């Protein structure tokens, strides 16, 4: 196993973990079925690209058309990517999260995802349409050679720092009184409203927080693969992340990480090996992979809806004897 392959695996794992933690905050903790998740990752990736690339009038870049081209130094494109994810979440959230029933929210977000992809594909001058952006500069590439082993280690470290940061923020959110409020809303929105919590405000906040984290994951990914196009953020990509959360365990960050390692990372690696074995028609193995993801979702929802690692039951220890309460429920 060479360094490049290992780096690929680790960076992808890091990006998937960050994305799964963000989606878990929305879907697992707060009950928002964000079928448009990949759009926010894409927003971050596009923003990070145009912030770090030179203007499209530059002769090396003149084969593509795009807005911006600010050539900002390293941390700024990633910060910009994260902000872009959050900014895109605001109008989407305002339309979808205010009045609609939860299952309608899900389909509205799904449709948003499909349409956003159609628009970006067809509107070429904006972000180079279907061909997408290429030759995205990598962080600090003028100081370390991007093809050296040192650069791979540097990128892994950079990704790891971001994973740590996101994990810290997510853990703080989940374990805070605010996280408790989110879970209360997920479990019984009407009851939480009756206790004076504003569900629209709660959902909007976590939608934007999730959007920011998703944007960051997109920025990390695009600077590693140096290209981004509509074909990499089709709506089924969101479904993989949902499969990861459902398999790993909804509502807890450890489950989200477990899911990220099992589904997107594990499955894609297995598929990569199978593709090398060259079985059947060219589309067969990727198609089987998608069917497997569907089966994972159905199987887990049927046999083990709580996932591999269930959300811990949070019990208030100061109240009446826990044993008595349990007993009372059984009786």
């Amino acid at each position: 196993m060479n360094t490049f392959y290992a780096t690929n695996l680790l960076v992808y794992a890091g990006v998937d973990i960050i994305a799964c933690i963000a989606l878990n905050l929305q879907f697992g903790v707060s009950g928002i079925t964000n079928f448009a998740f990949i759009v926010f990752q894409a927003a971050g990736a596009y923003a990070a690209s145009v912030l770090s690339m030179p203007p499209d009038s530059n002769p090396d870049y003149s084969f593509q058309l795009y807005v911006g081209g600010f050539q900002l130094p390293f941390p700024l494109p990633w910060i910009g990517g994260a902000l872009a994810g959050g900014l895109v979440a605001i109008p989407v959230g305002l339309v979808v999260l205010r009045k609609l029933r939860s299952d309608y929210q899900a389909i509205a977000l799904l449709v948003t995802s499909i349409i956003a992809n159609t628009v970006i594909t067809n509107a070429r001058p904006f972000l180079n349409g279907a061909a997408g952006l290429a030759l995205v500069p990598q962080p600090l590439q003028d100081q370390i050679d991007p093809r050296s082993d040192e650069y791979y280690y540097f990128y892994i470290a950079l990704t790891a720092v971001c994973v740590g940061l996101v994990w810290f923020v997510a853990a703080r959110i989940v374990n805070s009184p605010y996280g408790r409020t989110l879970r209360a809303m997920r479990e019984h929105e009407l009851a939480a409203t009756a206790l004076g919590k504003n569900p629209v405000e709660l959902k909007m906040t976590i939608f934007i927080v999730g959007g920011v984290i998703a944007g960051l994951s997109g920025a990390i990914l695009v600077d590693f693969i140096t290209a981004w196009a509509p074909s990499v953020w089709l709506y089924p990509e969101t479904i993989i992340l949902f499969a990861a959360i459902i398999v790993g365990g909804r509502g807890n960050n450890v489950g989200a990480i477990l899911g990220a390692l099992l589904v997107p990372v594990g499955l894609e690696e297995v598929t990569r090996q199978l593709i090398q074995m060259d079985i059947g028609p060219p589309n067969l193995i990727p198609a089987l992979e998608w069917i497997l993801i569907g089966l994972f979702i159905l199987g887990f929802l049927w046999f083990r809806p709580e996932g591999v690692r269930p959300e811990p039951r949070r019990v208030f220890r100061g109240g009446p004897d826990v044993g008595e309460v349990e007993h009372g429920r059984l009786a």
Partner: protein
Amino acid sequence: MAIYEAAFGFGLVSMSVIALAAVGFTMQFGITNMINLAYGEVMITSAYVAYYLDRAGISIWLGMIAGGLFGAVFSFALNRIVYAPFQRKGTSNLGMVIVSLAISLMLANALLPIVTYNSVSYSEHTGSIVRLGGLVVTINQMIIIGLAIVLMIGIHALLRYTRLGKAMRATAANPTLARNCGIPTQRVIDMVWLITGGLCGVAGVVAALNSDSFAIASGAGFLITALAAAVLGGAGQPYGAMIGAVIIGLITELSAATWSAEYKEVVAFGILVLVMVLRPQGLLARRGALAAAG
């Protein structure tokens, strides 16, 4: 002016196609409380059934019947094997949306190795051109419009004047009460899936016939237009879906004539967003997208 007349002609065809798709979709939701996101993929699968029959030299109209039968049987089986067990298990509405999306993904990918990504079209000649005043439509398009009108009247008659239709309306209003009144709701729901599945299959073949070419990726577009019409009319309301289809069909074709054909679905989506912001319960509101239901 001619461009608008032509667009109106296309709009008539378009609204017929959308109505066929949207009425089936909305009835599934209204009666069985199931937002079936696999609808678009069942449509495209039926279109491919007709395509392979077409290649074998069978007329497209027979292919359409075959597509309808396939859609009916497939949807029936889908409900019996997947949706109904999950619903009986107490899966939430949201969980059912995820289940149907997983099915949609699996169906598209089961089809992919067979049909590949390539666009195909039916060999059927479009038929000679008919001029009605300023409108220019082909014979095939006339047949599509006629078929939609006949089927819409059929659905109306079914819901209004038959015992089955009455039972369907009762099941939609309150399944528990309906069962307590002696209505065999299980059989009613089976019939709903057969009928709406048939509509879905026919709509798939008609939509494929009406577009120059179709591919596996067309399923998502089919779903979006059907969804937009259904939500615009008020989800679960067959008559609402018909009105929604008329509006969406006309507006998308007018926008295609004046702006760009690539953005048809975007326009349908724009209408969907407007409805969700301004009137989430849809035009004919009784039970709609508003919070605190089910």
